[in-house]
């Protein structure tokens, strides 16, 4: 923490947050400033701490499932997938092919919805107000599909251990196809608004640079790592839930600055729509729930499963002591790990860059604090 007592006469300690709109929640950043120049930062987290990992120890495996949605609440379906895969690994069962295809569709739609929130709020932080409304308009379409499928828009509780609870509704495939068709031109629209905009480029290019080596040192994953030029995507590297069947690319850039991360995420949205299109074309017929009992009682053991969430590598480590309740659930949230790099990215920059960098980190404080 920057020491407030022995400052030079020109230095200043300033609190940014926890009520600051551009910290995307309740992140508090203590900035040490020299004029507008940032000399150092210190993050204070925990304002949204609910003890989710501890709650898991007092719930059965099925009962804990809705709680994981409340960590990264803009990408709740990805969280559910990670948890379900981890428990399925413990139980040594696999979801049936139909369930896997529907899981991929919903998870990728959720990736689009999450990236749209990121784009809208990030652009709003920089000063471009218009994209926010367009992003939320398209996100609404994705959320409508979630609502029709499982009855909730945000904290969906869409997946169950061993597969799915709900069969797809009538018109699911049509709606998903319509969304994919509509979505491509909309991304072009966002790009038209932002990609070549001189203010956007001026604010983002060369800001918050994080090289590939630094990314690896900090454990930064997801679009931030790919923007630094590392071609690492868990959907390709260790495919889960049938991702090996789909043809998609991993977008990468080389500079690792905020602008590159923007480009990578835009490309990722297009790729996600591509995966959804392929998956919805042939959803296999068959059961939606694998062979799991009503009471889930995994054998003694432990399992770690990591998936590619919209924000990076999301890991679930579940330890079973043979009872109906997990002995320990540990979550490796991408936002929390990515947030470590904040100090490295903003040191030496200006205050306005802090806002841009927090935006590009794409953090969700529900996940950072858990």
């Amino acid at each position: 923490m920057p020491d407030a007592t022995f400052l030079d006469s020109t230095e200043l300690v300033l609190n940014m947050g926890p009520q600051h709109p551009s910290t995307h929640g309740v992140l508090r950043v203590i900035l040490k400033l020299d004029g507008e120049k940032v000399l150092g930062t210190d993050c204070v987290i925990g304002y949204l701490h609910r003890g989710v990992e501890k709650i898991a120890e007092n719930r059965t495996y099925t009962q804990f499932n809705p709680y994981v949605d409340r960590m990264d609440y803009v990408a709740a379906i990805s969280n559910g997938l990670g948890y379900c895969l981890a428990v399925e690994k413990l139980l040594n069962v696999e979801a049936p092919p139909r369930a896997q295809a529907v899981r991929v569709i919903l998870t990728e739609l959720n990736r689009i919805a999450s990236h749209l929130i990121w784009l809208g709020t990030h652009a709003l932080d920089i000063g471009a107000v218009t994209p926010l409304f367009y992003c939320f308009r398209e996100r609404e379409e994705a959320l409508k599909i979630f609502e029709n499928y499982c009855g909730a828009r945000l904290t969906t509780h869409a997946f169950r251990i061993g597969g799915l609870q709900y069969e797809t509704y009538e018109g699911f495939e049509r709606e998903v196809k319509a969304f994919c068709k509509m979505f491509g031109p909309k991304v072009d629209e966002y790009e038209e608004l932002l990609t070549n905009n001189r203010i956007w480029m001026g604010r983002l290019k060369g800001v918050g640079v994080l090289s590939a080596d630094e990314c690896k040192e900090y454990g930064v994953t997801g679009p931030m790592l790919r923007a630094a030029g590392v071609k690492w995507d868990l959907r390709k590297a260790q495919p889960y839930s049938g991702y090996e069947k789909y043809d998609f690319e991993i977008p990468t850039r080389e500079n690792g600055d905020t602008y590159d991360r923007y480009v990578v995420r835009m490309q990722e949205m297009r790729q996600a729509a591509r995966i959804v299109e392929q998956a919805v074309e042939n959803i296999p017929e068959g059961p939606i729930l694998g062979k799991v009992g009503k009471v889930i009682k995994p054998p003694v053991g432990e399992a770690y499963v990591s998936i590619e969430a919209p924000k990076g590598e999301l890991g679930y480590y579940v330890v079973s002591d043979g009872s109906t309740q997990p002995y320990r659930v540990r979550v490796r949230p991408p936002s929390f790990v990515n947030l470590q790099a904040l100090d490295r990215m903003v040191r030496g920059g200006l205050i306005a860059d802090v806002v841009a960098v927090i935006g590009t980190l794409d953090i969700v404080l529900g996940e950072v604090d858990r």
Partner: protein
Amino acid sequence: MVKLLKKIFLWDLIAGLKVTFRNQNPKYICTEQYPAERPKVAERYRGAPRLNINPDNGETLCISCNLCALACPEDLIVVTSERNEQTKRKDLTTFTYDLSRCMFCGLCEDACPVDALELTQDFELATYTREGQIWDRQMLEEGPRPTRYKC
């Protein structure tokens, strides 16, 4: 050269403005006029709970099996019953549902073997106080009466 001209004539900003004006068309308006027009929520929407009754004789469908109370992660359902000596079955006496702690995960309705407990499409559950958030059997069977706003 083209690049320079584009820069001088603010082409990047004009391109962005074109998008804005393209979207000005009133047919793209997607705002919901909420209190005036009630939105149609999805069929599977998980809202206010309801305890279904048999429409023919008005008796509850609940068989007091207590499975919903066991399934609930927040442990907010309390079911009590007494044994009916004539039919040798359990009769439901009270059923309380603490709506202030409910997170609408739907595990209780999944657990119900006779489709007695159901999460309905009623979504207007906001109140000014916590009073009345613990629903008893009568409230669960009748359902909430949301305020109708005049606009």
